[in-house]
């Protein structure tokens, strides 16, 4: 066994102490320190933890750290390595059930612990998934393919293109639906770009993840996955969807349009919201998929799908704040950026000192689009002089496109053309509801806690 394995994760004084007493990880030891005696299994050390403590797993299952410089004696009593595996059972096939492909990019639908980093490692094979979520076999025949194993913040153009290509390939091979496992942080970014890259799909493309990792008994992973599989296998909504918890309770999932969805809370299960519209459907084990609207693209029998996987990553989002200095914009232009999405205040505004910089940007051929940092509502640049001035400078209003969605669309458009008029035309032509002609009255609802009527609602309906 190599030293790295024998003293896994240990550095500095803690590693020296283990070497001095001739013991390594997974050894059952009796240890005497200045504070007393301990009996336990030496565990690998998390690499981000300090280098001054040795970790023991006591017989009771608890872990404790002992200061390396207080250890007086260690005696090994044997070796007992943990065999961590998710129980694998062969995923049953049933010719009468729909075929679903699960494409993995990361996230924690099923996972195990990584001692070195203390993080959880996703597990993924159909057997592993069946071992932890056997309900899936009642819904579909599942094939899985691990494309990437990254945290969602590490997804980028290369992965988006790879994912879109894999989705199109699976559709052409005749699957009845696609589920994409994805970390939740940037799930809505990927959902947006997939909506542009994979057009006119004949089957559902359902993105899913979890807000609580699947190594927790209360995880939302299993139920989200069940909801996503139900949607991919049985629904007739042939669009790119995000399928995540509706309320925080284990009740039902919501199917959000890929271009209108946003993660709105850093940790709640109920984090994804459709912005400026209502979700496409509800999904639950009891009722299956229940559409909330009728204007979605329907499932088709053919396998024709338009793959248009291009992306120019020389695009940036400028989140405007009062007092912003023009050099922020200049810096982007000087560094060769070809598109800027501004998240402006109110109806789509920035301060006057930015005007010359924006003019320089437009003159340099940079495509500048305006969105709103209020997230809800449209850009309207005619109401105030500020807006009209900005349009005169060449800043183009992007209606009610969400800032991240505008970023994705501009990157995708610039992958096709840099012609100013053509870029504007493509940006203004909706592909997948990224701009909607109207905001329904219930498209903006953030219930305000504390109001008597809201409190009555909460008491009556489980959160």
């Amino acid at each position, binding site marked *: 066994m190599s030293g790295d394995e024998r003293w896994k994760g240990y550095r500095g004084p803690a590693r020296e102490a283990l070497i001095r007493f001739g013991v390594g990880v997974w050894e059952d030891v009796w240890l005497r*320190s200045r*504070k*007393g*005696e*301990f009996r336990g299994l030496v565990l690998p050390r*998390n690499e*981000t*933890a*300090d280098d*001054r*403590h040795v*970790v023991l*797993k*006591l*017989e*009771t*299952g*608890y*872990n*404790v*750290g*002992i*200061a390396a410089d*207080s250890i007086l004696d260690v005696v090994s009593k044997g070796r007992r390595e*943990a*065999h*961590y595996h*998710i*129980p694998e059972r062969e995923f049953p096939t049933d010719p009468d059930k729909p075929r679903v492909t699960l494409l993995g990019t990361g996230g924690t639908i099923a996972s*195990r*612990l990584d001692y070195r980093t*203390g*993080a*959880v490692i996703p597990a993924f094979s159909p057997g592993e998934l069946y071992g*932890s979520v056997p309900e899936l076999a009642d819904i579909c025949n599942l094939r899985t393919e691990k494309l990437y194993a990254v945290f969602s913040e590490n997804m980028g153009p290369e992965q988006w293109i790879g994912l879109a290509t894999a989705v199109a390939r699976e559709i052409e091979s005749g699957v009845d639906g696609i589920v994409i496992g994805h970390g939740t942080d940037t799930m809505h970014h990927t959902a947006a770009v997939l909506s542009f890259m994979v057009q006119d799909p004949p089957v559902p493309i359902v993105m899913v993840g979890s*807000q609580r*990792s*699947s*190594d*927790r*008994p*209360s*995880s939302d992973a*299993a*139920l989200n996955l069940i909801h996503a599989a139900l949607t991919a296998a049985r629904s007739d909504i042939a669009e790119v969807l995000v399928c995540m918890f509706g309320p*925080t*309770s*284990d*009740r039902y999932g919501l199917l959000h349009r890929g271009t209108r969805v946003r993660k709105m*809370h*850093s*940790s*709640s299960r*109920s984090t994804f919201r459709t912005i400026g519209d209502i979700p496409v459907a509800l999904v639950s084990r009891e009722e299956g998929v229940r559409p909330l609207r009728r204007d979605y693209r329907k499932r088709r029998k053919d396998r024709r799908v338009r793959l248009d996987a291009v992306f120019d990553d020389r695009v940036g989002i400028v989140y405007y704040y009062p007092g912003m200095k023009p050099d922020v914009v200049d810096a982007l232009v000087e560094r060769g950026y070809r598109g800027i999405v501004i998240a402006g205040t109110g109806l789509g505004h920035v301060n006057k000192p930015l005007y010359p910089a924006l003019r320089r940007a437009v003159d340099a051929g940079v495509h500048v689009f305006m969105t709103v940092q209020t997230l809800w509502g449209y850009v309207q640049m005619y109401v105030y002089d500020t807006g009209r001035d900005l349009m005169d400078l060449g800043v183009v209003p992007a209606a009610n496109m969400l800032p991240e969605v505008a970023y994705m669309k501009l990157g995708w458009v610039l992958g096709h053309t840099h012609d100013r008029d053509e870029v504007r035309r493509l940006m203004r032509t909706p592909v997948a509801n990224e701009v909607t002609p109207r905001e329904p009255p219930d498209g903006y609802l953030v219930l305000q*806690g504390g109001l008597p009527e809201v*409190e009555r609602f*909460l*008491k009556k309906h*489980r*959160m």
Partner: protein
Amino acid sequence: MREPDSANSFDDLEFYAAIGLQCGLEVHRQLATEHKLFCACPVRPYSPLYDAEILRHMRPTLSELGEYDPTALMEFKTRKQIIYRLNRDTVCTYEMDDAPPFALNRDALERALVVAIMLNLNLVDELHVARKQYLDGSIPTGFQRTCILGVGGRITVNGRRIGVRQLGLEEDACREVSDVGHTRTFLTDRLSIPLIEVVTESQARTPVEAAEFARVIRRLCHLSGVVRTGLGTVRQDVNVSIHGGSRVEIKGVPRIRQIPPLVHYEALRQKALLEAREAAKARGLGPDAFDEGDEDVTAEVRRLDHPVFSQAVAEGGRARAVVLRRCAGLLAWPLGPTRTLASEVSDRVRVVACLDRLPNIAHTDDPSLGQAWWREVRARAGAADGDAVVVVAGPRQDVATAVEEVRIRMREALAGVPRETRRALPNGETAFERVLPGPDRMYPDTDLPPVALNDDDFERARARAPAPLEEVEARWRGLGLSRAQVDALLFTDRFRLFDEALPRVRLRPTVLAYLVADFLTGLGRDGVDVGRADADLLASLYGSGTAGTLTQKEAAAQLREALSDGRHAP
């Protein structure tokens, strides 16, 4: 061998040694912090009021060493819907498991360290927060965040050194409101209040000694000055086993005086189970004896007038008979004053299959449903004369679970005493609650980094720790106080008033102890505001003159007068 009757004093050393009683305690006690353990929520008095509810289900997950915990798998079979009631004054998104934990409450840690020092533990240098799985829903995450401060300590009980296995610092669980069918409801106000858990070695030789362990730990906690006191702030789990038996944990015993009968009857239950096993073996029953033989008897049950079954089938449920080959008579095997092996089977059916309207089973050792009816059921199920039959009824899926549980429990009877957690019944017996969890329920908490403790932390705790319990008690005994008076002083935290007032009054110490521990407690119970009875008041009443000659009665009369007219109030 003599068996003590229920009126005995539970202290017959010889009897319990003969059956090999081993008994230890886990004492859970809340710490008197202002805030909860992993968030900024205040610790407030409990309230049944709530503003909103959430619904969750729990799924078993793998342990760190790659195993499923048996308790988790059992709970999963129950298919419970868990409802949490949320009160916005006492709960935030952390308790809802909608936000990760904040840093460990330092005040709680410092308080727990004081107790760790008083327990003479080998202290750890770095705390590792673990997740201890609880799939019963009592914690919305499905696990309790908990860590160990020290191991291998000791306390002194009646002059005997008793080992303390470990001291944990952990978050308290929810309060259960109800558990009916597949729905269990909890209040969340108690959730995440900091607790210490003191685990003793199983060194109690009699049931009475176990209670003594608990009393010493209570005195030590009160003396520490860092714990919360009063009703609902302390719960004892009692571990019991005998020779050839298994560790059984009686959960959440609130009062120390309940401990001796619980331990006694659990020891006898284990003894009776071992005898039942021998009887079963003598009949040649093997582990595969219960693998098959069950039949739908819904039609037979329809002809009955049964308080539970009739309703179950009327609601569309089914009834099934399980044949237990060559088991006639075994279900009636007595396991306690009111319980038999059938009671254990019924418990399993109630807890795991959620058939909780009682009686939830009928069996051939209890012929109250009539010989004629049982003849029909036996015929339908294909049971022979020496066979026992158990009938269960309810929703189809629950009945399937129940049939399996009947078999599981009977197989366990052949193995002896199953490892279980049990709940206390008012008469001192216990009922099945869960399969006993093992070390596989533990998992490192990846949300929190380890917390290193340094010499300053230990020094601060040492400085804050009072003199050892034995020393304080010896000092009071030296003043002439009786054992009972010493115990009374430490029954609450009013002993502080005794120590503060002692140098300032001329009363005999025994009289002062009476006033502080007994008389004030009585007055308080009668509704008198005894909060004003501080050291200043006692000094002004008894600090001079002839106070030294006052009898208990005379001194008490003066105190009562002072508290009723407010004359001496500052």
